[in-house]
């Protein structure tokens, strides 16, 4: 067999005549990205991802099609080549009607694979669902109860039925069921690495960091100033929203993974960061935002701090509030304080300086408070607080406000209306106007800060001190539990990388494209064949019990209800999200999917085939399926139609996939480098046994 000799990236190589430059490079172990190249098929050289520079050539050449020739000198990697590959990917993505991950998952700060676990619930595989959930969330039962569920706002059902899928209720259900199971599905501790990590703060951020670090085999010690773990979940959020048993069960999971808890131990008085760093291989700071903001008005010291109040109730006290209580603020702490005070028998009014729409808490919290008889007054701000005579009663002088210009947060700034002062008389004023991070402690230990809290690298959560990472409210200021959980997971990955001597990059997030903007025609295509289905309601506690106890209001879904709700899931996102070459290379080459926005392919779906689904909007014209169908001697097969920008792959004569691919469908789906042709995944409708689309064609 004749051979040729060439030079690739400075290395000589000899290959059989007829081999391509790509073959030759691979024989040297040089990796070149490809999309349209399919082993065993004639090359088409369409995507140009595999482009290389041949010395003396004006153009870059597609290595997958270029025959290796004697004396050729090839470069497979240079700034120019990388830029060409990146631009190629950006162009492909600019013409891509795809959605790598479901819009709900895209909105979840922790990146939970929503359609994945929901499908598993629908399929009755609760253990599998827990595995999927634990991959991204610790404390899923807790989050299912308290999370504001940004995911549900992104749910495509919102554009179709009135309400999105009850995602939070579903992972709560799965978790509750799991906890009740004889053999619950739980993560396992990794093989001991011998490394020790100190975690300051046993709130959701710290617990999550431990949850994942322990699975990596690193020993974790959690230090917390409070007697019990849970952070604000325990000392802030009231029982009627989050029963302690549910929280304890989840903390128990971390405990059983082997965490050591050093409670009632305070950083600053009981130990210093320097000591921790000396005794441990890494440190995670999840100290939250514990300081309550002041009212900033005359007499502010007469007000009770909201978190202080909630903490005392959480610790079993019932503070004497008197008969009438005024809560100042509009966030979670305000609502929780108001509703807790109601349960302690007081009359409660909430004064908020903006309007209902600006309230930084869940609307159902507001509605719940109103149902329970809490009065809400908007556009009111405190001016002065004073004691009435010598007694306990207080006089709060307030001022009416109106909304002015937008501030940095995009909300309209309240401005006082002159001469609008009025008096409110009450026994107790609870100030729930925000929490802040303890900056002085951090500063003292040499940590850098931002306006919100500790300064960290966004991707890795590393602080300025080597081996010290931070996340959660400590970094973001008072925020959300799910973001603290997300941060704990990121930090765990970074710390693991740090401990195992890898470059610290944080978890790899694959590039993802969203389907946007979607017009009516596409919308119709998305919802074709999908039945309307209202959200399954969750049973709640009766009002009498609500006001007389701290029992949980939301009773959770039953098994059948959960299954029915799970079946509402449209399984959005791409069936090939995990195996998509386009996505993979876009990640590697840092392609920006939105750099060349312009006209693009339309979303469409052909699901006439029993084995595969075809979405032409995701086709990158690699020709693989066309070649495979031809090779398999399909009668109709597939062909490229149209010209220019509007080319597409279609079954000839407007026939459908079920006619086009009678033998080669599976191979096409396997070869298709994107999700354009994908094996049918279990869609919810398959589970419902409707069999509609697949039944017709078989």
């Amino acid at each position, binding site marked *: 067999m004749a051979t040729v000799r060439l030079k690739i990236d400075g290395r000589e190589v000899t290959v059989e005549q007829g081999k391509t430059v790509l073959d030759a490079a691979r024989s040297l172990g040089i990796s070149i990205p490809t999309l349209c190249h399919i082993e065993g098929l004639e090359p088409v050289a*369409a995507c140009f*991802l595999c482009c290389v520079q041949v010395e003396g050539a004006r*153009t870059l050449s597609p290595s997958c099609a*270029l025959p290796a020739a004697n004396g050729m000198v090839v470069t497979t990697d240079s700034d120019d080549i990388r830029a060409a590959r990146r631009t*190629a990917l950006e*162009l*492909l993505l600019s*013409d891509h009607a795809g959605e790598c991950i479901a819009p709900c998952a895209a909105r979840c700060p922790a990146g939970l694979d929503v359609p994945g676990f929901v499908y598993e619930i629908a399929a009755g595989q609760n253990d599998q669902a827990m595995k999927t959930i634990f991959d991204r969330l610790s404390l899923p039962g807790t989050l299912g109860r308290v999370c504001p569920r940004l995911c549900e706002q992104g749910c495509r059902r919102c554009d179709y039925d009135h309400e999105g899928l009850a995602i939070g209720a579903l992972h709560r259900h799965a978790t509750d069921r799991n906890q009740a199971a004889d053999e619950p599905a739980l993560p396992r501790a990794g093989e001991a690495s011998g490394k020790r990590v100190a975690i300051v703060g046993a709130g959701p951020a710290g617990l999550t960091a431990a949850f994942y670090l322990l699975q990596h085999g690193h020993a974790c010690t959690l230090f917390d100033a409070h007697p019990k773990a849970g952070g604000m979940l325990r000392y802030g959020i009231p029982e009627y929203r989050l029963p302690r048993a549910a929280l304890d069960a989840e903390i128990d999971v971390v405990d059983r993974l082997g965490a050591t808890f050093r409670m009632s131990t305070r950083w600053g008085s009981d130990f210093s960061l320097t000591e921790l760093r000396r005794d441990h291989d890494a440190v995670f700071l999840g100290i939250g935002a514990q300081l309550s903001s002041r009212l900033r008005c005359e007499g502010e010291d007469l007000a009770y701090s909201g978190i202080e109040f909630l903490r005392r109730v959480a610790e079993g006290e019932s503070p004497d509030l008197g008969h009438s209580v005024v809560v100042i603020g509009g966030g979670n702490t305000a609502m929780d304080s108001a509703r807790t005070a109601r349960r302690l028998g007081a009359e409660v009014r909430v004064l908020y300086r903006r309007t209902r729409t600006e309230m930084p808490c869940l609307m159902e919290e507001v509605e719940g408070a109103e149902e329970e008889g809490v009065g809400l007054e908007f556009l009111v701000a405190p001016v002065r607080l004073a004691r009435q005579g010598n007694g306990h009663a207080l006089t709060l002088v307030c001022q009416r406000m109106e909304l002015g210009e937008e501030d940095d947060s995009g909300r309209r700034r309240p401005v006082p209306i002159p001469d609008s002062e009025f008096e409110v008389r009450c026994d107790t004023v609870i100030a729930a106007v925000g929490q802040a991070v303890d900056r002085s402690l951090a500063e003292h230990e040499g940590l850098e800060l931002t306006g919100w809290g500790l300064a960290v690298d966004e991707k890795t959560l590393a602080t300025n001190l080597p081996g010290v990472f931070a996340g959660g409210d400590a970094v973001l200021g008072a925020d959300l539990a799910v973001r603290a959980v997300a941060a704990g997971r990121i930090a765990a990955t970074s710390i693991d990388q740090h401990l195992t001597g890898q470059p610290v990059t944080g978890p790899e997030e694959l590039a993802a494209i969203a389907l946007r903007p979607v017009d009516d025609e596409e919308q119709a295509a998305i919802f074709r064949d999908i039945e309307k289905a209202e959200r399954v309601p969750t049973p709640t506690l009766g009002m009498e019990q609500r006001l007389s106890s701290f029992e949980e209001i939301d009773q959770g879904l039953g098994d059948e209800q959960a299954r029915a709700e799970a079946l509402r899931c449209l399984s959005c996102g791409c069936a090939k999200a995990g195996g998509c070459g386009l996505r993979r290379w876009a990640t590697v080459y840092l392609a920006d999917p939105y750099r060349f926005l312009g006209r693009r392919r339309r979303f469409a779906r052909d699901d006439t085939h029993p084995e595969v689904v075809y979405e032409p909007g995701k086709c990158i014209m690699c020709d693989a399926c066309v070649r495979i169908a031809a090779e398999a001697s399909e009668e109709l097969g597939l062909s490229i139609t149209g*010209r*220019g920008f509007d080319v597409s792959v279609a079954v000839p004569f407007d026939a459908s996939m079920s006619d086009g691919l009678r033998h080669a469908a599976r191979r096409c789906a396997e070869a298709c480098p994107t999700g354009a042709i994908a094996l049918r995944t279990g869609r919810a409708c398959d589970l419902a046994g409707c069999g509609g689309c697949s039944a017709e064609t078989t």
Partner: protein
Amino acid sequence: MSGSGEVEFRVGLASCGVANGARPVHEAIEAAVREAGRGAARAVGCGGMCHREPLVEVVDADGRGVVYTHVTPELVPGLVRRHLRPKGLLTRARWLAAGLAERGNGGSALHAAATEETSAAPRIVLENCGRVDPLSLDDALAHGAYEGLRACLERFTPDEVVETISASGLRGRGGAGFPTGRKWSLARAQAAPKYVICNGDEGDPGAFMDRLVLESDPHRVVEGLAIAAWAMGAEEGLFYIRAEYPQAVRRVREAIREAEARGFLGERVLDHDVRLRFEVREGAGAFVCGEETALIASLEGSRGMPRLRPPYPVEKGYRGRPTAINNVETLACVPWIVRHGAEAFAALGTDSSKGTKVFALAGKVRHGGLIEVPMGVSIHTIVEELGGGVPKGRTLKAVQLGGPSGGCLPASLGDTPVDYEALRETGAIMGSGGLVVLDDRDCMVDMARFFLRFTCHESCGKCTFCRIGTQRMLEILDRLCEGEGREEDLANLEELADRVSRTSLCGLGQTAPNPVLTSLRYFREEFEAHVQEKRCPAGRCAALTDYRINDAACIGCTMCAQVCPVNAIAYRPHEPHSIDLDLCTRCNMCFEVCEDGAVEVISGGEVCATSPRMSAAEKAS
């Protein structure tokens, strides 16, 4: 030639003539000749002045000819009678008739620019176009057809012929300019069976020389391909002609049939032990099918999609066999070279570019049409001397060569000769022969957009950069012309242009950015004006342009009001007119009719053009 002593009336019946009503003219002449009992009516191909069809060339008994343009059937009786009168009156008659045709012409010159003004150079490709009856092999033979083939078979060896073609310096006229002799010798070295293909796909918008030659002188091309096949050792040849050229397809089929019947093709060519079988295939009609590897795919029954070269068709082409593909014009030169010798061909032109080149001259020149010029002539000469320069009041801005694959050459580089290398150095290319003259009212952004839109639509859609990159470039140019250009647009445009040209598989993608790149190179400030000032300096882009009538100059002649298609100008005799900008579509009609310098085109607050002011004498003509 017409030594018959008869007066001959030649009517151009190529597509261009027919489209302009030459058939009734031909019929009228036949009738008139029949009536007179003298003279002969002959159908010929196109003479190159397509913009003045129908054309009638009258050749008198001495072989002297005169050309009438824009002839109508009504003019025919008088025209025929004049030429068939006794000799003494002929001169006067010709003069009269000339005047007649002139008037119909709006005063342009009468004679084919190509023949007269470049008389120093022989016509090679167009030698017989408009002279020979394309439907008659006998007439073709009378004009020397197949003499070259005969000479080859009787006097030369194939190697000698390949050598002759090499020595002549002939280079491919299909666009790339690859030395034809080299291609032939590469093909000759390959093992049989092999194929020769005549590429008659001609897809450049505005180019029509290949069609003209195929329609008007098909035997010349058949002979060219026959010589090529014999010299390379191929027995089978294919004509790939676009389906939109039905006349060309029919005539070449007919020419092959006749040539076979008379032994110029077939099992024993001219009684030699030489076998040549030719066939005509109709092209799919896509521009990219003119690219040789796509052409082969299309011939093989697949979708016309290019593939990576190497391997080149000369190694692995049609049906996997060695295949030499030549352009129509290239092949049309071959018989001439064989008949006249390599030296005669090489005597014309520059060091690296020999012979002649046919161009389709169009745009802002007084006389457009097909011209055949010797290589080495300057662009300036073509525009001024053959084209008659740009219209009055306008100035030459640039020349666009090579259509969508080519580029523009600014007026300042007008001295550049027609030479492959010299043109390439400017960023433009020789191309397959489109030559569009642009004046100061032509917007370079818009021009680049026009050509890019073409390639973008014609991309086969395979390569990422060619398919999507050109679309994104087009979107940027659209934005510029709409006055929505963004800060980053020019940088992105340049990056994409560079990427598309260096990261596409075939010539289509590799050259698609040329119109953009050259306009950016020579007229960057015009692009910048569109982005930064939302101004179109040529006053062309509708979204950026307003029209206005200058009260001081307007004489109230109402011409503008009469032509305005949307009644944006109120009809007010003897008063200054004005334009309702809400109605105005920026069609430029008022600007074109105004003879008093009153219509102004405004962009970005600046007057960028004023209609020319004509003298009384100019108006009268």
